[in-house]
């Protein structure tokens, strides 16, 4: 092939979202698309198109897409995928295989089961505890825990009033560090 193309590479397998969606009626309303990069996870990840409005530039890179995103089995609701639609990583899911993906999405009850309850308060380290209790005349000061709550962390459930009394880290990889601790 006489034309040899030199440029940057990417390691995506698939087509750009606009190339797939431009070939479908109504710009692919209601169809499922899958990204090759997310196939490494055992759970199912796909994207269901609600509305796609391409800009129809030459390279088919830009436009607006509103999708329902499911990542690793969890449903993230409506999501604006415009910023990642240019990646040539997408594959169309034929209609017979749609059920495979839809059935493996976790429903609300399953997500409830996965919820981890975490304590609201943590104990202070011993020296700091002494200092604070003297300053505030409070024999048992507690530190309010701040958890990173986001769409990726939706199975965290904070139990109000619970106090974390652990001084050891369980299943640690260096147990010799905790051998001579006072309880």
């Amino acid at each position, binding site marked *: 092939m006489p*034309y*040899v193309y*030199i*440029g940057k590479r990417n390691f995506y397998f*698939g087509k750009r979202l606009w*190339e797939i969606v431009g*070939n479908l009626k109504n710009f692919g309303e209601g169809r499922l698309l899958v990204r090759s990069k997310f196939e490494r996870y055992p759970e199912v990840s796909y994207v269901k198109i609600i509305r796609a409005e391409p*800009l*129809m530039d030459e390279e088919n890179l830009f436009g607006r897409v509103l999708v329902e995103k499911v990542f690793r089995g969890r449903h993230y609701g409506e999501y604006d995928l415009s910023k990642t639609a240019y990646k040539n990583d997408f594959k169309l899911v034929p209609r017979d295989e749609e059920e495979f993906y839809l059935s493996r999405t976790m429903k609300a009850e399953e997500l409830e089961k996965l919820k981890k309850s975490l304590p609201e308060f943590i104990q202070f380290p011993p020296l700091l505890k002494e200092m604070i209790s003297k300053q505030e005349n409070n024999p048992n000061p507690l530190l309010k825990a701040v958890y990173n709550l986001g769409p990726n962390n939706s199975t965290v459930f904070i139990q109000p009033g619970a106090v974390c009394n652990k001084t050891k880290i369980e299943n640690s990889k260096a147990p010799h560090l905790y051998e001579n601790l006072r309880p």
Partner: protein
Amino acid sequence: MAGKGLILKSLLRTRSQNFQRICLRTFLADAYKCEAEWKGRLNNPLLEKLKNENFYGELLKKFQNDGKASAIDVDLFSTFVLNELHLEDLEIITKKFRRCPNTVHALPSTSHSVIRTYLEFKNTDTLMRMVDDRLNYGLFLDYYLSNLLMDSFLKEDNFRDAAKVAIQLMLQEEFDHPITSNLALYSCYGYLNKPQPEPWDPQPKPKPVEPVEEVKVRVDYIREPFFDDHFDLTQPNHLIGKTLVGFGKHLLRQSPDSVAYTSLLLGWTLFEKHDKVIETLDTILGLSSKPYLLKEGLDRCKKTVHDWSNPPEGFLDKYNARIHQLEAGGFIVHDNVSDILRQRIKDAVSKQENDDIQHQKERYRLWEQQREEEIQRQAQAIERRKRLAILEAKKKDLKEKEEQLYFFDNLDEWELRHEEKMLQKEILLKEEESRGRKVSAKSQRQAEEDAYYPPEIIAVRKQK
């Protein structure tokens, strides 16, 4: 009886050959075309206005100046193409509109009108080329149009274009309508039996001239070739194979019978998916209710496998073993595929036809209404913009006059504003001076990268 027969014969003889053929092979009634409603679109009073204007020229100007035109303008243009000479213009406008951001707002009647116009003027080669190029033209077939197209192609024995319509249906994965699915299967089998007219692609895209020596081209990103087995298929065998598989699977879900299983098997063989062929054969052999396979289909399968230049290892043995089992087990039936399908089409037509016609007439009416509403809306929007522009101009005028009249009363405030303006101007000037011809760091890096030429490695011999 004889008298009537003689009269009929003389009538037939006086008509042309085509009419005879039409009598024999029409599936859909003439009423299906809804000619009255289709021609009724010309009763619109707008047509008189548009005939006199150079609508095409103005649309082109809009595309040039703004890069896009409104959906309703393109819709009006495509509905009111009355002359064969305007078909090229229609193609250009359709392509330009599809490649502009306003495609999202396209009215459903636009693509319908384009396809029907091309069908009316019998420019079917160009039409099939446009329908196949979905990214650039965006003409999508619904069930009514696909039925109409397939029927008109089958009347003229144009199995190739009828099969192409079936392929489009498969690509959109629309297998539901009973008339359409049976017509599609009939067209595919018809093309396999009689691949006419000959060249699959009568209007191939001109191939760009490639230079003889190696030319290195700098691109931003290299596209790794990815072949999705769906929109990228080009070979007619593969396309027809996949269509047969698609319709076969749909039929299987409804009523597993000989046509379904034969279509599946034949489809996978044409599509050259070797493991799927073996899988289908196994399922057929393994079913408790013995499904029948049509001999025609099986013969064609065998012929296709025989014609393969290099089948994978072990395939031929497994294949032949299973075929022997099929033939020995009495799975084969000697029915004619075309006859079965023809009967089914007739049944489906008798059930669905009237509903379809009513539905389509409703849609034509709805589209007329939609068009009116859209025109009104556009007219109102244009008026509103004009009024706003006039208001803005007036406001500006009044402000200037006020400043002039009350200048000496508001002199202090004017002086303050003037000072601030002068300060800002100085700051801007200073910034521009300091910037000078400086380019941003990113574009500097890009320029370095673009200018980089990999060094040529010349072997240097060590001198002793």
